[in-house]
């Protein structure tokens, strides 16, 4: 008989759904800033796979051009909300003990590989049904560490003199900016994989992230 089972605590749902528009705003304002100096490329040695740039017609069509000042103002406004929400989320997972469900352990890598094989229909038997499977533990812990990385590299390029020790930790100003950029590309990759998995997992799973309960047989 189907039953309702509590899945996601209220606090985690709020942190998650508040983070979504805030991260979107940080990425979007970051793109407005990046437009002013879109210098990076995806490359293998000297071979350029993709320039991380668009031609001016496309930038214009997307209304991204000539908005550096606005982008910086948005970035340095919403950084507070993004950072505070992220820190509260991490603090909450520690205080509530929820981190135990999320933190990888020595079995996680093997389980994550199992999930990948199962998702690719290579391995039939489903991974053990814990609240978060190995791949999720890696992804959700990884994305939090990326968030820490974004805050720290962000500070390093925001105050490279007063916090020059931090900038030095990341290999200097241009390197800190480079890492800050690629972490953002990482969020986009995370987002795509996340949406694909949510669609695959179905309505019951998605609804649980909104109402907190899932239906179990």
């Amino acid at each position, binding site marked *: *008989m*189907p*039953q*309702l089972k509590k899945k996601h605590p209220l606090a985690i749902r709020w942190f998650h*759904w508040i983070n979504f*528009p805030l991260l979107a705003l940080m990425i979007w304002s970051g793109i407005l*800033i*990046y437009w*002013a*100096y879109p*210098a990076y490329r995806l490359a293998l040695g000297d071979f350029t796979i993709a320039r991380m740039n668009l031609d001016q017609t496309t930038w214009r069509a997307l209304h991204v051009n000539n908005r*550096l*000042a*606005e982008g*910086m*103002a*948005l970035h*340095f*406004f919403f950084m*507070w909300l993004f950072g505070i929400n992220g820190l509260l989320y991490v603090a909450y997972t520690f205080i509530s003990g929820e981190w135990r469900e999320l933190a990888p352990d020595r079995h996680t890598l093997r389980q994550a590989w199992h999930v990948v094989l199962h998702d690719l229909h290579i391995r039939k038997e489903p991974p053990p049904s814990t609240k978060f499977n190995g791949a999720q533990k890696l992804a959700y812990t990884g994305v939090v560490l990326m968030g820490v990385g974004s805050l720290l590299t962000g500070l390093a390029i925001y*105050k*490279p*003199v*007063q916090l*020059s020790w931090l*900038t*030095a930790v990341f290999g*200097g*100003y*241009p390197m800190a*900016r480079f890492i800050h950029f690629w972490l953002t590309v990482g969020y986009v990759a995370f987002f795509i994989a996340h949406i694909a998995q949510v669609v695959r997992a179905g309505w019951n799973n998605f*609804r649980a992230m*909104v*109402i*907190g*309960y899932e*239906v179990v047989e």
Partner: protein
Amino acid sequence: MSDELTRLTRRGFLTMGIAAGAGFAGWKWLRTRTPEGGLAWPFRSVLELNESLAEGYFSTSRLSPAFRAADVTRARLNGRLGLKSEIDLDRWRLRIEGAKEPVELTIDDIRALPVREMITELRCIEGWSTIVAWRGARLSDLMARFPPPQQTQYVALETPDRGYYVGLDAGSAMHPQTLLAYEMNGAPLPSLHGAPLRLAIPVKYGIKNIKRIGTLRYTNIRPADFWAERGYDWYAGH
């Protein structure tokens, strides 16, 4: 169970809908506030909050990293604001306003101040950065030689034609790496890099490194700043 599920689902999605609506309304509100210096005032206020935090932490003893001569990169030119009019270098003077009495200095007067050299990073607000070797006098040495009547809160700098102008907080003006530079990369300043005298201030973004300084003014009223009037952060400090 299904009644309970329906109730929970309705409540959950309703709450989320209201929260999303409130968030969107907040966003619309923020974006439509009266602009101050080309920026809706809530954003301007937060830039100023960030500024007061940065100023509170600022110390003139923290230095921009020094580089070796071999690290110097090709100088990059960005914009000719304030440089569009003709200039007669022989007749150029640096005017100091707001000192005990008005002062006009020649480039030799500036060169007579203790000579400082540094190789530092110039970080443009656009995102690129270069390494530049500077030679000049500390702004703080000039200010000690021609002091304001009382302690000044700000220093305003302008090109002779006032086509470009920046404002500095006193802390950044007094920083030991804030130079009135007359040489870059081992040669006298080229015209488009601000001959005969420009500011090299690694505790700020490139926009504050004003070229071809004509006037320096002590003031306790926050000086106008070219880019701050166009939506940028007035402080723009590192």
